[in-house]
């Protein structure tokens, strides 16, 4: 059985406008793979299609050996994929603890849920301190932690992270990337979308560069990090 994520010739459209024009990529079990690209390149659209939030127009998506491209998002989640959407999607009217409990909604292993809750609180002690606070009253950074923590509570084997460092102070950006490494060490697979290409490539194994709905470049993370076009467009100038 093939494991990990395998996307072939994916096309996604909003109404009549195609945003992703036939993209193929894969993420193997235990890898961190990053998708980088300018604003509007189609990164979030790809994640939404993979997690079943939006329908696809063409192509196939296979996750851990199951074709998921026609499944609604709740079914994809049940297969072990967790998507931290752009903008975090915190339940603002629920407490931090309830947000985490919603993450574990489709699980029945009480023991496992408890273990994961402790794991999340260890990863983000701030969430433990504020477990009774309403999600909507958390700071932006805390909400980001909650979004990642909630995704971990689903017990997923694969995480799709959409710009987890967005809007965070530099110190927090670093700790979010450290968390990614921690998560991978637990044996989980990560597909990471980032504006912060330098950081993303520093922790990723491989990467894909997306340009207006097409993959322009792909390869090992250090290959991309040293590629002149990547450094010019996404890393803010020459690195050499």
């Amino acid at each position, binding site marked *: 059985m093939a494991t990990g994520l395998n996307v072939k010739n994916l096309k996604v459209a909003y109404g009549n406008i195609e945003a992703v024009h036939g993209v193929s990529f894969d993420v193997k079990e235990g890898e961190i793979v990053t998708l980088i690209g300018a604003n509007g390149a189609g990164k979030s659209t790809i994640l939404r299609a993979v*997690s079943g939030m939006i329908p696809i127009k063409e192509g196939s998506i296979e996750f851990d050996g199951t074709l998921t491209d026609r499944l*609604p*998002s*709740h079914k994809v*989640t049940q297969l072990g994929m967790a998507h931290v*959407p752009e903008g975090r999607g915190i*339940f603002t009217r*629920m407490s931090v603890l309830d947000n985490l409990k919603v993450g574990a*909604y489709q699980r029945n292993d009480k023991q496992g849920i408890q273990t994961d809750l402790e794991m999340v609180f260890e990863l983000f002690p701030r969430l433990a301190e504020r477990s009774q606070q309403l999600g909507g009253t958390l700071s932006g950074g805390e909400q980001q932690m909650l979004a990642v923590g909630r995704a971990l509570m689903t017990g997923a084997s694969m995480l799709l992270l959409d710009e987890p460092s967005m809007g965070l102070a530099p110190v927090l950006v670093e700790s979010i990337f450290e968390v990614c490494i921690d998560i991978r060490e637990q044996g989980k697979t990560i597909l990471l979308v980032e504006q912060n290409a330098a950081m993303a490539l520093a922790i990723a194994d491989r990467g894909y560069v997306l340009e207006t709905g097409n993959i322009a470049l792909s390869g090992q993370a250090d290959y991309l990090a040293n590629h002149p076009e990547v450094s010019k467009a996404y890393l803010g100038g020459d690195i050499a």
Partner: protein
Amino acid sequence: MDLFFQTLVNGLLIGGIYIAVAAGFTLCFGVLHVIDFAVGEWVMLGAFAVFWLNFFTGVDPLIFLPLIMVLFMIVGYYFQPLLQRVITNQQSNALLMALAFTFGMSILFRGSALTLFGFNQRSLTTFLSGKNFEILGISIPALRFGATVFAVLVTLLFMFLLYKTKLGLAVRAAAERQDVAGLMGIDSSNIARIVYAIYLGLTAMSGTFLGSIFSVHPDMGLRYTLFAFFVVVAGGLGSIQGAILAGIMLGLINSFVAVYVGGQYIFLILFTVLYLILLVAPKGILGKGW
């Protein structure tokens, strides 16, 4: 002074019945984003269902409450996908489509009831009808008291379901962000069906009480639709606690207007109050949602 307290008690007792309708209607709006214009007709259908059950069996109407609940929950569960289709097919203006659709439903239900049952007002007699008891010189009608106790219990149960159970967690999640709820493994379309089912169950049960306190006739619904609008808007769209408060307020206004002003002015006064509430608190009494 006696009249004042009597009016107060009557108002609280009527308001008590409204809270069950208010809670269900608000949840329906919160999760489905549908303002069900036919809410009053569901009250009417609940009342008629009991009327005919009672007519053919002779068993006390109140005994049928659980049956009515289950019956209308089933109707709601299977009816909701139809409503859903109307909303999702016309994504451009879902709220308006839902309003038009449920408005059409209300006309259809009322018209059919008129054709089938005629204009007659029918009365429903329960074992509590016509009985009174006195506390501190205030006379309390047993039926209204029973209805209020029942509505409060059902509403408490409903709140427990919403805030203390796993299903409730999923409902609250789907109410706030359907898309994200999906990412948490929640089947939002099924949640919507369950919510609509609960709402219809609560509404039809209240119909049983309202039908036996007042009377059963095909035109009885419109009044409750307007009441439901009042409760939901005054309470803060989607706030269940707000709706419950507004329900009690509605009962009090009803009762005081009837005694001190005259029943014919009820809607005038009600919507003036609503206007004033919205002027002071545009998000409703407790407009912080849930």
